[in-house]
C-alpha cells in the first residue's frame, strides 16, 4: 500500500463507490489514519475484500475539495474536465477545487487513459458521486439550519435555505455527514438537467497550467530519489530474438562512478537482449554508455525493410482467405460479380512515430520492505502492472506506480515497457535508479504506428449506382501483442481481430453491400511492437475510406460533398441509438452541411488550388464524435510542394465540458492529422526505425500551421470523446484537395507529389 497519507485530526468528508454501496461519510477520522484507510476498513468490514473502494473526492474541514484523478495528464487537462463534472453535480465552489493524480492501487479500479474515453466513460459515475455528495451536504445543512432539505439548494460550495446558508466547511465541521448509498440508490440519483449546469460547459482554467508555465510541473524525468544512480539502456538490433553475446566494458571501468553494464534478463521476453549501463551521475552514465561495447546476435527480422512490410501487407490484402471479417452487410460478392463497373484502389501509410518529447524513462526505488516504487508517467497502469509482477516475481500489491505528468502520451505511454529494464537494473544494483532512454533508443523502440495497406473495391450496378464496397485492411496489431484479452471476435465467429486497428472502417454511409476484412501483418508483428498511436486504427483506415469515397464521387461525376450527404441517410443501422450515438448519421450530415457553408464549398479557386472534404465518426461507432473537415491547399507546380492554407472543422462531440480545453484538443489533434499527412513518416531499414531524431523525423512546426477554423455544435447530448478524432479527417481532406487542385490522386501517407 502506498498513497498520499491524508493524516488528519479534523473531520473529513469522503465519497467513494464500493461494490454495493457508496461510502459517503465518516465521523471523525482518527489521527494517524488516512481517510483512504478508513474507507477501506469499512469495506473490509462489509466482507468486500475482493472489491476495493473507489474514492473520487474528499472535502476537508476548510471546505477544500480534492478530486482524485485516476486518468493520466498528458496535455488534455483531463483532471480539470473530470473535476468539473463532479463539482457541477456537487455544487462546489470551483475556487475550492484541487486535483491530485493518484498512484496505482486496486481500489481505483481499472486504470487506463486512452481511446478518447475519459469523459465519456466517467461522466455518469462521477456525476452520481457528485450528486450523492450534494444530497448528504444538503441534508446535513438543512438539519443544522432547522429547515426541510427539500427547501434547500446547493451551489458555489454552500447550502442555501431562503436567505440563510452554510458553507461546506461549516457543515463538515459539525454536521451529520454519515450516509451510505446502495448502487441502486446511486443509479437513481437525480442528475442535473443541462440547463442547470454551472461548471460543466464553463471555460475554467485548467488546473495543471500554472505548473506548466513556471517549470515546476514534475514529469517522470524530473523525479529524484535519495541515493539515486543513473542508467541508460543499450538497445539490441531487433525487437525480438536478439541476444547480447558479449559485453566489453573495459573502457568504461576507467570512468569514475561507473557501476556496471547489466544484461536485462526479462522473464516475460517483452524485452530481449537489452543491456543497461549504470553510473553514479547522468553525465558519467552517458560516457559509460558510449564506452561499453556490446556484441549482439540479432533476431531473424534484422534484414526487414519498410518495403517488405508493405509488400506483405498488399499480398495479404489480396489473399481473400486471410484475416477476419468484421462487417458483412448485404452481399458484396454478388454486387461485385454483377457489377457493370468496378473501381479499385490501394491506400498505404508509412510507419509513424509517437516521438513524445519527453523520452521514455522511469525512476525505481525498492523500499526496506521490498516494495517496488516506480515513478513515471503512464497511460495504462492496469496493463503494465501485471507484466511487472511476472518480471519481478512480486505480487501486484508490492509494486506501486507513482503517476507523474506525461511529457506527451499520444498512445506511446499506454505501454510502460521502459519500466522493465528500470526495475531489473535497480534490483540488480540495489540502488534507486533513474533510467533514461536517449532519443535514438526511444525512436528505435517506439511502439510505432504500423505501416498499413488498405485495398478497396467498389461496384456499380447496371444503372450506375454504387452497389457495394469491399475493404481489406492490413496492419501490425498493437492489441494482439500487448493486450490480447481485448481482441474481438469476427462476424462469422471465426477468428479474432484487433478492434482498435479497424474501428474507423465501419463508416456511417448507407451502401447496399459492405464488407470489411481486418488482417494482421505477421511480418510487421515480428519485426516491431506495433503501438496505438493517436486515433489508432481510424488514423489510417480513415485515410483510405474517405479518400476512396472521393474516388467514388468522381467515378459517379458527383460532387464529393453531395455524395456524402446523400449516403448519410441514417437508414437502418446508421440511424443511431441511445446515449452518445443518438441521431446517428443525421448528426454527421449536420456537421457536413455546416462545414460546407462555412468553407464556402464549391467556390471557384485559382489554378493549382483546391478544396477537399472528409468526415469521421471518431474512435468507435459506439462512441461517435461527428466531424466534417474541409482542407484548402495550394500546390507549387514546379516543386510539388503542398501548402495547406486553411482547415475547417465542424465537430459534434455532444456535451462539451470545458470549451477552451476542447478547442485545444481539436487544434492539436487536427494539426497532428496535418503533420502525419505531410510532415511525418518513418521507415524500417534493416529491422530498425531509420529516422531516430529531429534531423530526419520532422513533425510540423509553427511555420507549417495553416489558418484553423474549428467550431463545436452546441449540444447537450451525452459526451463522447475528443483527444483523437479531429486528427482523422485531415489527411483525406488534404488528399482530396490535392486531387481537386491537380487531378492527381494520392494514395500514400505521407503525401508526396514529387
Amino acid at each position, binding site marked *: 500500500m502506498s498513497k498520499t497519507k491524508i493524516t488528519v485530526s479534523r473531520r473529513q468528508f469522503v465519497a467513494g463507490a464500493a461494490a454495493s454501496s457508496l461510502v459517503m461519510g465518516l465521523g471523525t477520522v482518527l489521527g494517524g489514519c488516512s481517510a483512504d484507510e478508513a474507507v477501506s476498513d469499512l469495506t473490509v468490514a462489509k466482507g468486500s475484500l475482493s472489491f476495493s473502494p473507489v474514492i473520487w473526492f474528499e472535502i476537508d474541514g476548510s471546505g477544500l475539495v480534492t478530486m482524485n484523478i485516476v486518468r493520466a495528464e*498528458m*496535455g*488534455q*487537462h483531463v483532471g480539470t474536465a473530470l473535476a468539473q463534472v463532479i463539482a457541477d453535480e456537487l455544487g462546489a465552489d470551483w475556487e475550492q477545487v484541487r486535483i491530485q493524480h493518484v498512484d496505482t492501487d486496486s481500489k481505483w479500479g481499472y486504470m487506463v487513459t486512452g481511446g478518447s474515453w475519459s469523459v465519456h466513460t466517467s461522466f455518469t459515475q462521477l456525476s452520481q458521486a457528485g450528486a450523492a455528495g450534494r444530497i448528504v451536504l444538503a441534508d446535513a445543512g438543512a438539519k443544522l439550519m432547522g429547515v426541510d432539505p427539500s427547501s434547500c439548494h446547493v451551489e458555489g460550495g454552500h447550502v442555501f435555505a431562503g436567505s440563510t446558508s452554510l458553507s461546506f466547511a461549516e457543515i463538515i465541521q459539525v454536521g451529520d455527514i454519515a450516509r451510505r448509498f446502495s448502487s441502486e440508490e446511486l443509479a437513481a440519483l437525480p442528475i442535473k438537467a443541462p440547463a442547470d449546469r454551472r461548471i460543466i460547459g464553463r471555460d475554467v*482554467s*485548467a488546473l*495543471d*497550467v*500554472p*505548473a*506548466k*508555465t*513556471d*517549470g*515546476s*510541473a*514534475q*514529469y517522470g*524525468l*524530473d523525479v*529524484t530519489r535519495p541515493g539515486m544512480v*543513473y542508467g541508460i539502456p543499450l538497445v539490441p538490433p531487433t525487437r525480438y530474438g536478439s541476444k547480447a553475446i558479449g559485453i566489453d566494458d573495459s573502457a568504461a571501468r576507467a570512468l569514475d562512478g561507473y557501476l556496471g553494464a547489466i544484461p536485462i534478463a526479462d522473464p516475460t521476453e517483452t524485452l530481449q537482449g537489452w543491456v543497461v549501463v549504470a553510473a553514479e*551521475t*547522468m*553525465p558519467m552514465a*552517458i560516457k559509460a554508455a558510449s564506452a561499453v561495447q556490446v556484441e549482439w546476435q540479432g533476431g531473424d527480422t534484422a534484414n526487414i525493410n519498410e518495403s517488405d512490410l508493405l509488400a506483405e501487407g498488399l499480398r495479404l490484402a489480396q489473399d481473400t482467405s486471410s484475416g477476419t471479417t468484421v462487417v458483412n452487410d448485404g452481399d458484396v460478392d454478388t454486387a461485385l460479380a454483377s457489377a457493370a463497373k468496378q473501381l479499385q484502389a490501394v491506400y498505404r501509410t508509412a510507419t509513424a512515430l509517437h*516521438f*513524445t*518529447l*519527453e*523520452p521514455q524513462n522511469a525512476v525505481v526505488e525498492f523500499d526496506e520492505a521490498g516494495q517496488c516504487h516506480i515513478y513515471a508517467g503512464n497511460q495504462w497502469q492496469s496493463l503494465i502492472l501485471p507484466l511487472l509482477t511476472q518480471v519481478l516475481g512480486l505480487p501486484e500489491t508490492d509494486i506501486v506506480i507513482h503517476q507523474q*505528468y*506525461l*511529457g*506527451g*502520451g*499520444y498512445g506511446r505511454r499506454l505501454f510502460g515497457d521502459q519500466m522493465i529494464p528500470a526495475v531489473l537494473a535497480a534490483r540488480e544494483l540495489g540502488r534507486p535508479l533513474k533510467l*533514461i532512454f*536517449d*532519443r535514438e533508443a526511444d525512436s528505435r523502440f517506439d511502439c510505432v504506428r504500423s505501416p498499413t495497406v488498405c485495398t478497396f473495391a467498389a461496384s456499380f450496378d447496371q444503372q450506375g449506382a454504387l452497389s457495394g464496397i469491399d475493404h481489406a485492411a492490413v496492419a501490425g496489431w498493437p492489441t494482439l501483442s500487448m493486450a490480447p484479452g481485448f481482441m474481438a471476435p469476427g462476424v462469422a465467429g471465426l477468428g479474432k481481430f484487433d478492434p482498435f486497428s479497424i474501428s474507423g472502417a465501419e463508416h456511417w454511409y448507407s451502401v447496399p453491400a459492405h464488407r470489411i476484412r481486418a488482417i494482421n501483418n505477421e511480418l510487421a508483428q515480428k519485426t516491431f511492437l506495433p503501438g496505438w498511436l493517436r486515433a489508432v486504427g481510424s488514423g489510417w483506415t480513415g485515410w483510405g475510406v474517405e479518400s476512396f469515397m472521393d474516388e467514388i464521387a468522381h467515378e459517379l461525376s458527383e460532387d464529393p460533398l453531395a455524395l456524402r450527404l446523400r449516403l448519410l441517410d441514417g437508414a437502418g443501422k446508421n440511424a443511431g441509438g441511445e446515449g452518445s450515438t443518438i441521431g446517428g448519421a443525421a448528426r454527421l450530415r449536420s456537421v457536413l452541411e455546416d462545414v460546407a457553408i462555412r468553407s464556402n464549398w464549391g467556390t471557384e479557386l485559382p489554378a493549382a488550388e483546391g478544396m477537399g472534404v472528409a468526415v469521421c465518426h471518431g474512435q468507435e461507432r459506439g462512441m461517435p464524435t461527428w466531424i466534417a473537415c474541409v482542407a484548402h491547399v495550394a500546390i507549387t507546380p514546379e516543386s510539388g510542394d503542398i501548402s495547406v492554407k486553411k482547415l475547417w472543422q465542424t465537430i459534434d462531440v455532444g456535451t462539451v465540458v470545458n470549451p*477552451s*480545453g476542447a478547442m*485545444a*484538443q481539436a*487544434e*492539436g489533434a487536427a*494539426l*497532428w492529422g496535418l*503533420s502525419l499527412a505531410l510532415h511525418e513518416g518513418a521507415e524500417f531499414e534493416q529491422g530498425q526505425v531509420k529516422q531516430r*531524431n*529531429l*534531423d530526419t523525423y520532422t*513533425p*510540423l*512546426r*509553427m*511555420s507549417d*500551421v495553416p489558418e*484553423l477554423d474549428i467550431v463545436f455544435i452546441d449540444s447537450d447530448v451525452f459526451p463522447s470523446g475528443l483527444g483523437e478524432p479531429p486528427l482523422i479527417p485531415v489527411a483525406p481532406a488534404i488528399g482530396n484537395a490535392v486531387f481537386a487542385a491537380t487531378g492527381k490522386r494520392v494514395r500514400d501517407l505521407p503525401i508526396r507529389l514529387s
Partner: protein
Amino acid sequence: MVKFRLNGEQVVSESPTDTLLLWVLREEMKLTGTKFGCGIAQCGACTVHLDGSPARACVTPVQAVANRSITTIEGLASPVGQALQQAWESEQVPQCGYCQSGQIMQAATLLEQNPQPSDADIVSYMNGHLCRCMAYPRIQRAIAVAADRAITEEPAQ
C-alpha cells in the same frame, strides 16, 4: 569545477567541465524546468538564457558558461518573462507542457529585442521549437498578447 551565475546567484559546478549544461542544471543544480528532448539542439526544450541570449543547454558544455550568466525558467523574473507567463495562463497554452519552458525562454528573448513582433516575426523566431502537442496557435497568440500587455503596461513602470 566551473563557476557561473545561475538565476542571479553565483554557483559552482563540480561536474567534469565537458558535462553538458543541461545535466548540470537538471541533476546537479536540481532545476528540472529545463527539459531533455532531442539532445541535438533541434527541439528547443532545453533553452536557457546565456548572458540574455537563447542557448540550447543540451549541446552547451558547462565550461562554455564559466563566469557567465545563466537564467532558467525558474529564474525568469524579467517583466517580459512575467508577461509571457501570465499570457501562457490566460491563453491556456500548455497541453502536455513539456516543451513550454523552452518556448517561454525563447519567446522572452524575442520580446527583449523586438517588443512588438509581427506574426511573421514570431513564427520565424519560434520555428526551432517543437511542440509535439502542436499547441502552436496558442503559443503564437500568447506571445502577441504578452507583447501587447508589456507595451500597455510600460508607462506605468
